[in-house]
Structures are given as C-alpha cells and as structure tokens.
C-alpha cells in the first residue's frame, strides 16, 4: 500500500510539472517582451536576464520612429466605438428576435446561421469595395462599423432574454401603460446585462487585436492603429529589438491588465464566443 501511495504521488508530481511547464511556456513571451523592453542594446546582445531601467528611454525612442502613442489612442477609440455599437445593435436585435413574432423571422434566422459559416476572407474584397464606395477609406468607422454585425451577440441576447424574461412581466408592464420601446429600455436592457457583458468582452478582444480589416482600410500614417504600427516595425530591420519589444509589450498590456482583474469572467465569455453560443 505504501509503495502504491508513493507511485501515486510521483504520477501527481509529473502531472504538476507538465502543467506548470505548459503554463510557463504560455507566459514566457510576455516575460520576454517585458524583459527586453527594459533593457538597452548592450544588455540584449549579452542576453542578460536582468530587468534594466531603460523602459522610458526605449518608449521615447520608439515614439521618435513611429507615432506609437497616437496609434494606441486610435486603437482605444476604435475598440470603444465597436463595443458600444455592437452591444447596442445586438441588444435591440436579439430582444426583437426573442420577444416578437414578425414576418420573415424564421427565414432571417436561417440566413444568419448560414452566413456565420462563410469565412471572413470571402468578405475581404467586397468589404474593400464597400468602404471605397461610401468613402470610408482611412476612416476609423471602416473598422468599427462592421463590428456592429455580431451574429453571435444577437443569438446570445435572444437566448438570454428568452430564459430570463418571463412573458408575465411584459404583460403587466403593458397593462401599466408602458409602450414597447419603454419596455425594451426599462425592463429588457437591465435584465440582459450579463449577456451584454459577454458580447462586450468578445468584441473588445476581437477589435483590439483586429489586423485584417485595418490592413485593408487604413492607409495614411496618422490613421494607424497599434497592430499596423507594429507590423511596420517587423519590416524595418533597422529598428533595435528593445524598441520593437517595447511596442509589442505595450500592445498586449491593456488586455493583460483586464485579464488579471477579471480572468474568470473573460475566460467564460470568450469560450462562449469561440463556440458561438
């Protein structure tokens, strides 16, 4: 029995080591970019593993090469707009799907499910055509307007409202003389808050990291978002590593901080988003 217990412990230890190894490999790139962002060129050449004190200097020099702060602010703006729009549009549409019967409801529903299967790259060429036609090239709206179409969000709100909002509440609100829009705003919206939070988290992460649409839509130097600025650094071999890593680290850090404070909620929401309801 003792031998058996010991073997059990060794197996457990091995599993602990294995999982810890995976966790370390997952975290290592963050550590590495943070490390190099604080070092000067000499420390990097010597592959020093000690944090240096050059972060602010690296940041200043990065700013001289590319409009980095500007691009971070632009990304924050685009992400905010995309999230607000997506949450508002999904809330209204999902609520309508859940509460009302209307003509074309089931066919619209089928069409939405079908379009979810079309790969995003099919949309890329016509997306360029559309934003060119309506004059949105080099406008941030070209990136945040399409985020308003969040089929996952609509389905999630529909499902949530269906489960959380009993018909009796709606009926009594109508008896009290509230009109349909007032019911949506005063009763529906507050009730679907958890679903809207999930939609918001998914959209924030997607938009902050979005690369494909900005690549096609944003061209002039003062309209850059952070992913595009980072990409321009990858082509320029002249840029020293400490500056490139300062940029990478700063592009990751906002979502990283959010994750540290709400990892449970974010993991739940993003998993939900990944399996599309």
């Amino acid at each position, binding site marked *: 029995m003792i031998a058996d217990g010991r073997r059990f412990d060794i197996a457990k230890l091995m599993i602990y080591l294995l999982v810890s190894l995976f966790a370390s490999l997952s975290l290592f790139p963050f550590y590495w970019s943070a490390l190099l962002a604080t070092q000067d060129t000499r420390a990097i050449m010597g592959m020093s593993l000690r944090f240096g004190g050059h972060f602010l200097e690296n940041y200043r020099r990065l700013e001289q090469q590319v409009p980095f702060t500007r691009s971070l602010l632009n990304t924050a703006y685009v992400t905010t707009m995309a999230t607000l729009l997506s949450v508002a549009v999904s809330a209204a549409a999902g609520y309508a799907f859940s509460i009302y019967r209307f003509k074309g409801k089931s066919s619209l529903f089928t069409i939405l499910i079908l379009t979810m299967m079309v*790969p995003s790259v099919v949309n890329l060429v016509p997306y360029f055509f559309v934003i060119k036609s309506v004059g949105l090239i080099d406008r941030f709206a070209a990136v945040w307007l399409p985020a308003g179409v969040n089929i996952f969000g609509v389905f999630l709100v529909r499902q949530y409202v269906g489960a959380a909002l009993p018909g009796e509440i709606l009926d009594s609100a109508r008896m009290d003389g509230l009109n349909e829009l007032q019911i949506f705003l005063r009763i529906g919206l507050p009730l679907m808050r958890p679903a809207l939070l999930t939609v918001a988290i998914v959209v924030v992460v997607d938009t902050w990291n979005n690369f494909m649409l900005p690549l096609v839509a944003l061209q002039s130097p003062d309209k850059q978002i952070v992913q595009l600025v980072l990409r321009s650094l990858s082509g320029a071999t002249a840029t020293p590593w400490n500056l490139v890593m300062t940029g990478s680290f700063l592009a990751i850090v906002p979502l990283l901080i959010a994750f540290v404070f709400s990892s449970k909620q974010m993991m739940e929401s993003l998993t939900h988003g990944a399996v599309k309801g």
Partner: protein
Amino acid sequence: MRKPFFKGLLHDHRTAYLLLLPFILLYAVFNAFPIFFSAFLSFQAWDPVKGFSSMTFVGLDNFYYAFTDDAFWISLVNTIKITLVSGLCQHLFAITLAYSLLHVITRGRHFLKAAIFLPYITSSVAVSLIVFNLFSPVGAVNELLVWLTAGLHLNALATMLPVNFFDSDWIRFTIANQVTWKFTGINTVIYMTGLASISPDLYEAIELDGANRRQKFRYIALPLLAPFIFFGTLMTLIGNMQLFNEPMILTRGTGGVDNSGLTVSMYVYKTGWSYLDMGTASAISWILFGLIALVSALVFRGFGKRRGLNHDR
C-alpha cells in the same frame, strides 16, 4: 390601450422591425451584400486602381487561373499541413491539460488555467514580433539548443545549429507552433467545461470496479467528451484553414522563401492587393469556402459514423 397577447409574445411588427433595423442595415451592407458581390466578382476581372468601370465578365477564367496556379496549390498544401499539425497538437495538449487541471491538480488550479488561457487574448502581430526575436538564428531558442546539445554531447545535432526557423523548411513549423501556443488554452477551457459536466457518480461507479486513473480517463471521460471533441475539432479546422495574421507577419508579407509560408487567406490578400486582381482573389476565397464546407461535412460524417457504431455495441 393595446391588448396584451398570451405570454408576452406580440405580433407587433413595427417595434420588432424598428429594433431590428440597425442590425439589418449593417448586416446588409457588411455581410449580405459582400457575399453576393464576392460571388459576382469571382466571374469578373477587376483592377481596383483603374476604378469600377474596369470590371469585365470573364466567365470561369479566374477559377481556371487559380487551379492552374502553382502558388495557389502551394498555399493550399501549406494551409492543410499547418491546420493538421497545429490542430492535432492543440487538441492532444488541451484534453490532457483539461483532465489534469480538473481531476489531478488542486492547488493553483485557477492560476495555471488562466496562464494557459492567456495567449488567446494576445495580439498575433505583437506575438509574431516576439517570435522573431526568440527564434532568430542568434535568438534565445537557438542559444538554448546550442546549450542543450553541448550539455548532452549531441555533436551530430550541434552541427545543424543554428536553425533558421524562418527558412523554407521551418517556417510552417514556426507558424504552427505559434498557432498552437495561442489556441491550446481556449480548447483546454472548452474541454474543462465538458469534463465538468460528467457526473461524478460515473467515476465512483468505475472506481468501485477497481479502475485506475488511466482507465477512468479512457472509459468514462473520453467517450463522454466526444461531442466536445467534435465541436472543438470542427472549430479549430474552420479557424486554422483561414489562417492569416501569423503567416502574414512571420513571412513579412512575402509568403516566405518559395512561398513556403503562404496560406490561402494570405494568398487571397496578395492576389487582391499586391497583384491587383480582385476577381481572382474572390474566386480563391470561394474555393476556400468550398473546401471548408467539404472538411466540415467530412468531420460531421466521420463523427456520425463513429457515434453510430458506439450505439450498436
């Protein structure tokens, strides 16, 4: 006052359409129209620089061009290789990690789970830059390999160093590695949800029969996890086949030496924006769609059969 209907359901077309209007508008402009337009465009020749008037109908020429184009086939083979290697690794790792985190690990479970999930929320572009540094010929990974081969006296391997992880032999590995790193975590969490839904009674029952840890995994967890494996694999296949960001940055937009890191999505972009041939770009994107639909159908059939067999037993 309006008469309330039963259970709050209401045939109020006006309010319904009003609430749906913003969504329908955006959907029409950014989803529905583009799909039809893309289908239309795949039969046209269009150079966007010359304006909309330069569009001309060319029949199936774009598809013919794509199917006789070496670069297209290379991109297709690359995409399939990266998809399979990274997909397999992601799911093997994820199932192992999920089972370990849920049934073996007690202390530090949440931290380890969160750490493994974290790559999912990172920018592919930023991580690609870190990968450039780590995997460069003078980077930390090569240094580690040199140190390991010297320490273990593996002289034959040592002569192969430093490895150029961005050359035509290694670039697909480097891309697959980064993709695996990014998506193993979310698959782990998906599998943890699946494992958590398995009733503890089943484990207890098989434990009473004297089953060990491995048998519990093999005969309880794995079969009951089948629907999660099904959806997880399907999502990974669909996602990986559209791979764009990682190959785009890791090959600096070129596709790599001899297109060794070119994926289909990236080739669509290059055809449209480098070669200014929007018609062929659309055609290739539809070929990709067809391929994804085909793979999805095969996965559905494959799993359907396996599950059918299990029912027979």
